[in-house]
């Protein structure tokens, strides 16, 4: 009985949270411009190359007062080609459930100037095709505007990043040594025991 009441109260609690009103991406104005400077067609290497990003407020588009812009985050987002057959990167209009942009590369309070920064591609960025998007947040930490390097269809201005392989020479060697040990000890035991049996038998 007690566990049933607990379950019911937990369900109600979760229901309440979701009826608060989540931010939908389609409702956001594209009031920022974002430009990522990188050589066209070249594949960037994780752990080695940088991305230079320039972003700022797009004066012609904005119809929101700047006062509500408190924080800006710039994120690395998966292009549609890297989302195929990979539901864990799925785009969802509800930004709480959206998994398109999984890496935050810049997180600072909003300033009215055009900002520029360089980001070194970290070693845990996977091999995929990306674009860059920035979100502006209000006091309540909700997204209120965005900007991105690509067009609405996410087909333009995409770039590729090649992740690290994760392999290492020392690991390969250790692997071979341990495997050899396992095989040799098995064969060794077998041979020794057979010999002992022959000697005694």
């Amino acid at each position, binding site marked *: 009985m007690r566990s049933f009441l607990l379950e019911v109260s*937990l*369900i109600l609690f979760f229901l309440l949270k979701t009826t608060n009103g989540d931010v939908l991406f389609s409702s956001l104005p594209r009031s920022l411009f974002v430009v990522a400077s990188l050589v066209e067609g070249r594949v960037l290497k994780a752990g080695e190359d940088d991305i230079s990003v320039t972003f700022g407020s797009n004066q012609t588009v904005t119809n929101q007062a700047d006062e509500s812009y408190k924080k800006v985050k710039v994120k690395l987002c998966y292009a549609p080609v890297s989302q195929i*057959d990979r*539901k864990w990167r799925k785009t969802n209009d509800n930004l709480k459930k959206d998994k398109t942009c999984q890496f935050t590369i810049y997180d600072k309070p909003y300033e009215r100037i055009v900002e520029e920064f360089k980001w070194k591609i970290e070693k845990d960025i996977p091999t995929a095709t990306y674009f860059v998007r920035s979100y502006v947040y209000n006091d309540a930490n909700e997204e209120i505007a965005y900007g991105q390097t690509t067009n609405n269809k996410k087909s333009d201005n995409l770039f590729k990043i090649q*992740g690290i392989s994760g392999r290492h020479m020392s690991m390969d060697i250790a*692997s071979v040594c341990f*495997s050899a040990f*396992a095989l040799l000890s098995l064969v060794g035991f077998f041979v020794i025991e057979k010999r002992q*049996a022959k000697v005694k*038998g």
Partner: protein
Amino acid sequence: MPENIEGSPGSSMHGVTGRESVMAFSVASPTVHTDPTAKFDLPVDSEHKATKFKLFSFANPHMRTFHLSWISFFTTFISTFAAAPLVPIIRDNLNLTKSDIGNAGVASVSGSIFSRLVMGAVCDLLGPRYGCAFLLMLSAPTVFCMSFVSDASGYIAVRFMIGFSLATFVSCQYWMSTMFNSKIIGLVNGTAAGWGNMGGGATQLLMPVLFEIIKKAGATSFIAWRIAFFIPGWFNVIMGVFVLTLGQDLPDGNLGALQKKGDVAKDKFSKVLWYAVTNYRTWIFVLLYGYSMGVELTIDNVIAEYFYDRFDLKLHLAGIIAACFGMANLLARPFGGFTSDYMATRFGMRGRLWNLWLLQTAGGLCCLCLGLVNSLPLAITFMMLFSIGAQAACGATFGIIPFISRRSLGIISGMTGAGGNFGSGLTQLVFFANASFSTEKGLTYMGIMIMLVTIPVSFVHFPQWGSMFLPPSQDVVKGSEEHYYVSEWTEEEKQKGMHQASLKFAENSRSERGGKVASAPTPPQNTPNHV
């Protein structure tokens, strides 16, 4: 006395130890490579198989064998499912698609379909100790191979190879049957199998923790998961060494030495296979086990990723929840065996069948609900109920299997075990490797499938005991246990007295009539060679 007939299958290993006095049909020179002590820590029968089960002892040979055996099985479960909780990292490193991940899951359980079938023969030839050690030591390099993997095909290939090691199930059960008397073999095997299966749960806990520790030590994600794989690899090697140095095949020594002194002639394999394959009950249970054990293996592969993605949990938290599923085996599988035995005392075989149907169907229903709920606490609740249902059903299945056939029990057990893996592979292929279903839909459909597949239990009919809905045969001859079990032997074989052990078993199985029918006491020599 049937045991003295040479080549009589199922007869004791009388004469094999070489310490009995010389008989008329005396065997070759007495062995020297046997255990010098005549005293055992546990009470034993005439074959020196233990008649009591002392859980917290490590005494040689019986309890030590038990622990070596179940821990080896546990270790292979850890290795086989080690990738599952790390999939969120691996999928980014190797650029895997949902189909790749699903196919790797299928591959991880498919290898052992074949290896489990072969393992019985290997144990016969080399003994369970070497069978177990071979599997552990030969699969260790495959685990270490994870460090070389750089794309989907490599990943699938390595998971396939590691999966072969799940055949330790067979060596575990075989080894138990050489060490423990048939009166307690059900409990012993059920406990060993259940605790071994726990490895599928333990690995969901272990691997994310190892991963986090290695990351904290400075490695980046895509390197850390590979390093983490060295630990299960080393478990394999360590257990292999323990089994080789501490284990022994039989209560009195090792098979190699003992085999030279007059082996027990085995039954003809082709005959044993024939009676297994032509018994329709075998196939029903192969199907059923695919949806009790099979779904357990499937869940071991998908559940951590499911909680990570659906509920946005951190990797180690998803791992903890996933671990709870597998760890429930500690009690759930023995529980299923226990309820089976309990129902049998009241309602006989009919009770066992109903018990199995109820447990497995309830498990299926909870699996269906698991896919439907959107909240984390409900999901965890249904997952746990599902785990109890499915794992208890596994225990209950092996409460019935010994009664399907006496002659072909070994092969039927092996086929059922393989069926478990086949069911898992098929389920993952159809419901979880497909990009068109989400994982939650896959779970719901799997739940429906479980409930449908369990219906054939109602078709299992024993002429002497009836079935779920039908009463036993009223015919005096056909309705006897003896008729059922002795019908597996031809007249020729009966004349040689090869069916004596089946007769004894039939007598003892009268307890499956239920009610207060007391079974005849088990004579001490009535122990099967393989369970």
